[in-house]
């Protein structure tokens, strides 16, 4: 399973890395050098908050104008804010773009919400179908593609 996942995995290529640094004893197959949940300081969920949906969209607040200035933020936090500043992105897209497990991204985004640097859109509430008018718009949109 994980072998297949590695082979089929897009966006993981690191051209030039192997040739530029020929003597590294590890490679991508060995997994990340830093354990993913080290970035969250071991937390696997954000305290007291609803689990963020994969398609919840992260939107930066004006206060996030220069996230690099806040010393308490990790580089991953900063990168999330930067990516979303260009275009708000879903949790799933952030995880794929940052090459981090979804769970890690949830925790990091949770931190940013706490710091009021971003807010997160709520997708359709669970167990509830979207509005009929939205469904019609989706059908029209798909036909027009």
């Amino acid at each position, binding site marked *: *399973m*994980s072998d297949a*996942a590695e082979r*089929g*995995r*897009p*966006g993981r290529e690191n051209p030039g890395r192997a040739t530029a640094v020929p003597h590294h004893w590890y490679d991508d197959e060995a997994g990340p050098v830093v354990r*993913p*949940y080290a970035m969250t300081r071991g937390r*696997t969920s954000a305290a007291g908050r609803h*689990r963020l*949906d*994969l*398609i*919840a*969209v992260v*939107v*930066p607040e004006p206060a996030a*104008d*220069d*996230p*690099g200035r806040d010393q308490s933020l990790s580089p991953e936090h*900063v990168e999330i804010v*930067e990516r*979303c*500043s*260009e*275009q*708000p992105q*879903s949790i*799933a*897209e952030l*995880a*794929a*773009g940052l090459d981090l*497990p*979804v*769970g890690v991204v949830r925790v990091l985004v949770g931190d940013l919400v706490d710091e009021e640097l971003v807010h997160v*859109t709520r*997708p*359709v*509430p*669970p*167990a*509830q*179908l*979207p*509005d*009929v008018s*939205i*469904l*019609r*718009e*989706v*059908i029209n*949109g*798909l*036909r027009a*593609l």
Partner: protein
Amino acid sequence: MAFGRSSRKKTPVEPVTLKILVAGGFGVGKTTLVGAVSEIRPLRTEEVLTEAGRPVDDLHGVEAKTTTTVAMDFGRITLREDLVLYLFGTPGQDRFWFLWDELAQGALGAVVLADTRRLEDSFAAIDYFERRGIPFTVAVNCFEGARRYPVETVRAALDLDPEVELVLCDARDRESVKSVLVAVVEHALVLADRAHASAAT
């Protein structure tokens, strides 16, 4: 920091996001289908699972393994600037069903992709969506060289409810996949209309 300050001036559009699941057996063409309509190359997101005692995760012979990586492929279709549809390929293995629950939350509908040579692979998915009342459409991926069966024969073999649509498709073909997705949303619309009608009376 290498970001453009000027682009920050305009308020970012907050899109309404929706998702459709693409389920089916291993190798039936889920990622191909997603790729056929997605505006981005299908992305892969991973969840590292560390919980002990997940059922039927047979670690015999690899006892040292304490984490499992589950991958989900997904694509995006921007219908309008403020309306974005995501397609998620569900993990193929049955043992990752607990992830389906999360994926299925708030899903607008689902495609069950089927291969007539291995119809039994789609039973689990059909059963899942039926039980949860998630609108779904069965799309038979017409593989080259696979024998074609009449739609009614496949319907009977899958024991589908009369109102569930079954369509033939080519998961590589954009137009074909578009019509599958339209079928899913139309079915969702019928169910939503009915729900509204019964709520009104």
